[in-house]
């Protein structure tokens, strides 16, 4: 089957019910997307599917075939970081960093849908779990991107 990842069409010879995360990490060697809970609860495995966040650990690869998959590796425009990635650096958001790829992609999707989110909007949309507890800085960085008014 064919899978479009970060703008490149990749050929895969896998079972259709293989989780998208497995296909990305083990078949395509894209290791930026992380395995967390494996049951779509924590969000470490978040990728964007046609711009919408999905939890790739519980998403069959066949359902993603023919659609646009963006992982954390593909968010920057070559060397130019995405504004959300830049805000994550500016506000020193990550601690260990394991969940942050998912956090960033979820934030991108939120800001696309709602360019000026309130704290409540952020809390409702950002259901990704961070064991280090970086939530306060996640919120701050999202507000910072919104305040700049850049299109994400």
């Amino acid at each position, binding site marked *: 089957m064919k899978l479009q990842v970060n703008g490149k069409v990749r050929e895969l010879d896998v079972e259709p019910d293989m989780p998208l995360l497995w296909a990305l990490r083990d078949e395509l060697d894209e*290791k930026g997307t992380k395995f967390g809970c494996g049951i779509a609860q924590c969000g470490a495995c978040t990728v964007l599917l046609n711009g919408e966040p999905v939890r790739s650990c519980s998403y069959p690869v066949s359902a993603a075939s023919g659609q646009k998959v963006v992982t*954390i590796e593909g*968010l*920057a425009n070559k060397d130019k*970081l995405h504004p959300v990635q830049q805000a994550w650096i500016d506000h*020193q958001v990550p601690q260990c*960093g394991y969940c942050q790829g998912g956090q960033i992609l979820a934030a991108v999707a939120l800001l696309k849908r709602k360019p000026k989110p309130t704290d409540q909007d952020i809390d409702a949309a950002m259901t990704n779990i961070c064991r*280090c507890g970086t939530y306060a800085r996640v919120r701050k960085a999202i507000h910072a991107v919104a305040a700049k008014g850049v299109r994400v």
Partner: protein
Amino acid sequence: MSSTDQGVRQPDRRLFLKTSATAAAGLSLGFYLPGRSDANNAPRLNAWVEVRPDETVVIRYARAEMGQGSMTSAPMLVAEELDADWARVRVEYATAHENLASKRAYGDMAAVGSRTIRQSQDYLRKAGATARHLLVAAAAQQWGVSAAECTTAKGRVMHAASKRSITYGKLAQAAARIEPPKEVALKDPKNWTLVGKPIARVDIPDIVTGRVRYG
């Protein structure tokens, strides 16, 4: 524990070690010193600092980075005493292989109990100060002046009386041939310019682009 882009950086380092072994590259204070035969005498050696001809200062980090930030703060201690230009510092992990090859120059390489800074600050500062000493000695030799008259800042050695200044990268090769001192003076903390300041973590750019590896 995380590590960054091993696949990309290791060949670079191997190439560097190969070239430094033929005395063609920069200052590698450690067990790969060009022309040195006392590689087994690990306690006297400094495995932490490399000054490359392009002015990049590579500082090794020999503990785990798990979000506590010591991959940034421990190299800051080296850079402080070295008077390196922090913007040109690149932090790289020391490997277990290097540790064994150097009779454990990097110690137990453990990050535990908030001990990284407390346990390693003395030898990290000495590593930076020793490297600085060699670079100053190399400049003084080149200029025919006393090392005591030279000062350092931001990756340069300066000699105020003759208004001369030279970068670390240009001195590295000569500095690597000088015998390191057994004792070296450390800065008075009141003169610190880097340590104690809020500095952005060196590993965050790799986190936000998905390049950091965990394992």
